């Protein structure tokens, strides 16, 4: 069981997953986003090879309206 925080919410995964899988599961694969794990930015090219570990704190951001 892998327990992580994504955008401040607790999420649990039954098996080991990679970041690409997490992004797909949130339907974000075609959206312009950026991801941090434990305050380190993960480049898009590394999503598949980045494994999610228990205790990871993940931030997924997007562009929204602002001045």
């Amino acid at each position, binding site marked *: 069981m892998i327990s992580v925080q*994504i*955008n*401040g*919410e607790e999420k649990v995964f039954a098996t080991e997953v990679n970041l690409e899988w997490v992004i797909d599961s*949130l*339907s*974000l694969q075609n*959206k*312009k*986003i*950026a*991801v*941090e794990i434990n*305050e380190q*930015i993960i*480049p*898009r090219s590394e999503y598949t090879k980045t494994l999610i570990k228990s205790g990871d704190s993940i*931030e*997924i*951001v*997007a*562009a*929204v*309206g*602002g*001045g």
Partner: protein
Amino acid sequence: MDNLKIGNSEYSSRLIVGTGKYKNFEQTKTAILASQAEIVTVAIRRTNLGQNPSEPNLLDFISPKEFTILPNTAGCYNAEDAVRTLRLARELLDGHTLVKLEVLGDPKTLFPDVSETILAATELVKDGFEVMVYTSDDPIIAKKLEDIGCVAIMPLASLIGSGMGILNPWNLEIIIANSDIPVIVDAGVGTASDAVIAMELGCDAVLMNTAIAHAQDPEKMASAMRLAVLSGRQAFLAGRMKKNIYSASPSSPERGLIARKT
């Protein structure tokens, strides 16, 4: 061509607009198109995790392919958060380095914390960003930010979202005279005349959000602002007449008057 030059890029529009405070994405797009702005600001926030696949993002409406998207650091109160936010923005925008830095000091007035702004600007310039920096209208701070390597100085005209217009044109003039990089009024523009005045003073561009988004008719105001920026710029380039304080000079000739002189 009287293009706006920021960093290594050139733009034909001297009006920069924000994407916040609109009713919906459609209204945002309509207003931006009416403004003919080429650079638009966005904020960076946590994505909604409950998102369904068909729910559109802002960038589905305002595409990075059609516009220069300028990420901001709205809501950041220290240098560390601002730098972190812009590094994420750079990743999100596929390596795009033109950014708007704002580090706030106080949630009520949204006045910039210039000490933290200087720290953030230093870090960001070192990391290869082209920093357009929101700041107070303090000419010394403006020069410091320019010396650090920012690509544009963006002094406030008045408080963000206040619509109070240009409160201190004198400071703005000093900043413009001292600056070798573009000076862009950011914050406080309320209506078209504010934008005209900014451009007449010699600003290189004007950035606004609330003035358009909270107008009764945002599309019409966006269009007014486009004209205002063009008009103010043309007046500046034309070189205004001298002000004659306390003295008048008639526009009609003295010779040949039929009226008896008193």
